[in-house]
C-alpha cells in the first residue's frame, strides 16, 4: 500500500507539481516517462513520490518519448491506469504512437506542458505541440492555471476510462507560465481524489489470462474506415456528455465549476477574444478594464479542444459582432487554427460576426495587456463598421515592421 500524503487545504504549487500530485492521487498503475523541459518536474515529482513510498505503481524511466508512449500503450493494453507527461520535441517524437493509443482505444492520460517546437530550438511555452495533437484522436483538455492542471487530471481519468469512451486524453498547460508559476491550489484529500476518479475497470485486458485478446490488428480498405468511423463516433457522441457529467460531479464535490467552453462577460458582449491557456485570464483582466469604460467586451476560453465544442460556441457567439481568434502557434501557410475552427463553427448559423486572427506569443513571447487592449480596439472598429477594418491575420508582439496576411 502506498502511504497517503497529508495535504493542506491550499498548497502553493506550480502546474507541474499540481499535475504530479494528481497522478499520485489517482494511483496510476504504470507511468512510463521521459523528461523534457518544461514538463520534466512532473516526472521528477512522480519519481520522488515513488522513492518516498507514496506511489506503489510502476515507474518506468524509458529511453525516449516514443518509448514512453509505447510502454504506456503496452501497459494500458495489459489492463490498468496509465499516465505520462511530455512537451514539444518529445511530443513530436510521440506522435506516431498517439495515433496507436487512440486507434487501439486505450485510456492513457498525457500531461502536455505546451512548448514551442524547433527549429529554432526553444524551451518556452506556445501551443505548437497542442495543435500538433489535434487530429490524433485524443481528448484534449486545456488548463489555464495550476488549479486547472490539478483538477482536469481527475476529470481526464474519469472520462477517458469510462467504458463508453475508452479514448486517451491530454491535459494541457502552458509551459513555464503555468508549469513553473506557483499559485495557491485547493487540494483534495488522497481519499476524496481517488474516490472521484474511481477504481480502474479493465476491459480487453491482456493480463486476463483466461481471455486472451489481440490488440493492434491490421485492417485495410475493407475495415479501416469502419474502425476510424467508430472511433470518431465515440469521440463525437460519448465524450461531451461524459465530460459535462464529470464537470458537474466535480463541482458538487469541490465547488469548482468547469465548462466545455469558458465564458467571461459574454452575456451582452459585442466583441470577444477567443483564446486558450494563460491568455484567457489575461484577457479577463483586460475585459474588466474595458467594461469599466463601458465597452461591451467578453472572453471565450476553449476548455475542451477535442472534441471541438462546435454547437456550444455557435450558441455563445450568436450575438457577438466582432470576434478575434488568438493563436499561439505559427499556422505555417494559412489562417490560425482557432480562426479556422471558429469560422467553421459559425458558417452555417447565420451569425454575421466579423472574424479576424492574431498570431501571438510564439516561443514564449509575452502577451501583454496592452496587446489585448489593441486587439479589442480592432474588434470594436470591426463591430461598428460591420466589416474587417484590419488585415485578417496580424502578428502581435513581433519586433520590426508590422506583419499581416490576407
Amino acid at each position, binding site marked *: 500500500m502506498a502511504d497517503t500524503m497529508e495535504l493542506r487545504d491550499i498548497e502553493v504549487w506550480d502546474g507541474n507539481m499540481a499535475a504530479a500530485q494528481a497522478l499520485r492521487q489517482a494511483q496510476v*498503475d*504504470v507511468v*512510463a516517462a521521459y523528461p523534457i523541459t518544461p514538463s520534466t518536474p512532473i516526472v521528477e515529482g512522480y519519481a520522488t513520490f515513488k522513492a518516498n513510498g507514496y506511489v*506503489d*505503481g*510502476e515507474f*518506468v*524511466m*524509458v*529511453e*525516449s518519448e*516514443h*518509448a514512453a508512449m*509505447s*510502454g*504506456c*500503450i*503496452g*501497459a*494500458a*493494453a*495489459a*489492463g*490498468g491506469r*496509465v499516465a505520462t507527461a511530455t512537451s514539444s520535441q518529445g511530443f513530436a517524437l510521440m506522435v*506516431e*504512437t498517439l495515433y*496507436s493509443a487512440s486507434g*487501439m482505444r486505450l485510456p492513457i492520460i498525457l500531461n502536455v506542458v505546451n512548448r514551442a517546437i524547433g527549429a529554432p530550438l526553444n524551451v518556452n511555452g506556445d501551443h505548437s505541440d497542442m495543435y500538433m495533437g489535434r487530429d490524433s484522436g485524443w481528448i484534449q483538455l486545456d488548463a489555464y492555471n495550476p488549479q486547472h492542471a490539478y483538477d482536469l487530471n481527475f476529470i481526464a481519468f474519469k472520462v477517458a476510462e469510462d467504458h463508453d469512451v475508452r479514448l486517451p486524453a491530454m491535459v494541457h498547460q502552458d509551459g513555464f507560465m503555468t508549469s513553473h508559476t506557483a499559485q495557491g491550489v485547493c487540494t483534495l484529500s488522497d481519499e476524496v481524489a481517488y474516490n472521484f476518479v474511481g477504481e480502474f475497470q479493465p476491459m480487453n*485486458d*491482456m*493480463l*486476463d*489470462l*483466461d481471455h*486472451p*485478446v*489481440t*490488440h*493492434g*490488428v*491490421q*485492417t485495410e480498405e475493407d*475495415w479501416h474506415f469502419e*474502425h476510424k468511423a467508430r472511433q470518431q463516433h465515440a469521440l463525437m457522441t460519448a465524450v461531451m456528455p461524459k465530460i459535462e457529467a464529470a464537470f458537474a460531479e466535480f463541482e458538487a464535490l469541490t465547488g469548482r465549476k468547469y465548462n466545455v467552453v469558458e465564458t467571461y462577460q459574454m452575456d451582452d458582449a459585442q466583441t470577444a477574444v477567443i483564446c486558450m491557456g494563460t491568455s484567457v485570464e489575461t484577457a479577463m483582466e483586460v475585459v474588466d478594464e474595458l467594461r469599466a469604460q463601458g465597452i461591451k467586451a467578453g472572453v471565450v476560453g476553449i476548455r475542451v479542444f477535442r472534441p471541438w465544442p462546435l454547437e456550444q460556441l455557435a450558441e455563445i457567439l450568436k450575438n457577438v459582432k466582432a470576434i478575434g481568434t488568438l493563436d499561439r502557434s505559427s499556422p505555417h501557410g494559412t489562417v490560425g487554427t482557432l480562426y479556422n475552427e471558429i469560422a467553421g463553427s459559425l458558417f452555417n448559423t447565420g451569425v454575421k460576426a466579423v472574424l479576424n486572427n492574431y498570431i501571438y506569443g510564439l516561443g514564449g513571447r509575452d502577451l501583454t495587456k496592452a496587446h489585448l487592449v489593441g486587439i479589442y480596439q480592432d474588434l470594436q472598429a470591426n463591430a461598428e463598421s460591420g466589416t474587417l477594418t484590419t488585415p485578417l491575420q496580424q502578428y502581435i508582439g513581433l519586433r520590426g515592421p508590422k506583419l499581416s496576411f490576407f
Partner: protein
Amino acid sequence: MSEIKKIKNLKEFSTSADRFEGANLLCPGCAHSIIVREVLNATNDDLILSASTGCLEVCTAVYPYTSWDASWIHIGFENGSTAVAGAEAMYKALKTKGRLKQPDRVPKFVAFGGDGATYDIGFQWISGCFERGHNMMYVCLDNEVYANTGGQRSSSTPIGSSATTSPAGRVSYGEKQNKKDMLAIMAAHGAPYVAQVAPNKWKDMVAKIQKGFAAEGPVYINAMSACTTEWKFAPEDTIAISDLATDSLVFPLYEIINGSELNITYRPKNIVPVRDYLGAQGRFKHLFTKQYEYLLDEWQTRVDAKWVQLQRREEARV
C-alpha cells in the same frame, strides 16, 4: 518458478498445446511460423506476446481474424519490445496492488520482431528494455531482409546478397556491408541469456527457449529464419536450406550466459562449404561468376574466422 515442460519427440512437440494457429497468411514454407510455434510450444505457461510490424504481424492479425490464442499486441515497427515491457510493468504493478485476476499464474512475456525491427529501427527500444532489465524474451526472426515490404536491405543483410535497395547490377555485387553482430551487442548489455537458434535444430532451440524462460531478466534469441520469397528457394526446401545454414556455420548455434560465458551448442559432423549454402539461394546467384569468385572465398574465410573466434571464446570461459 513454473515447471519446465518435458518434450519427448518431434511428433509430440508438433501437436502440443497450440497457441499459434496454422491459419495465417505467411508464405508456405515460411520459417517464421515454425520458429513461433517452437517458442510457444516450449512452455505450458501463460503468454503475453507482441510483434513488431513485419511479415509475422501482417500475416497473423488481419481483422476480424487472429492466429493468436494468447494475448498479443502490435503497436508499430520499432516498439514491439517496449509494448511487452509496458505489459510486464503493468503485471508487476497489479501484482503489488493485489489486482491480478489470476494471481497464481505467472505469464511469460515474449516480443517477436524481424531483423529490420531488431537490428535497425527498433534497436534503441530493445536496448532500453534490456538496460532496464524487464523480465521478457525478445525473439528476432532474422531473415536478413525487410521481407514484408518487398526485400529491402537491413543491417542484418549479409555481404553480396541482392536486396531491392542494395541490388546486384552491372557494377555492383549487391549488399556491401557485413551483417551486424547483434548477439554480441545484446550480450554486452549484460543480459542473463543470449542465444542463436535455428528452427531445423528444434531440440537445441527448445532447450534454449526453456533456459531463456527460466532466466530472470531480459533474454535475447536470434532465430535464423529462412525466407523462401526473399532468399529465393523453393518453399519445400526451408529445412534443407536451414540445414545448410547451420552445417556451413554461416549461422553457428551458441549461447552466451550472463554476457560472458559462451557455449557452442551445435558442432556439425560434416561442415559443408559456405558456397553450398550460398549457391542454393537466388539472392546470391550473381556471385557465382568469375568476377566475384573472390567474394565467395572471402565469405568462407569470414565464416571460418568466426568459428575459430567462437571456439576460443568458449575455451576461455570469459
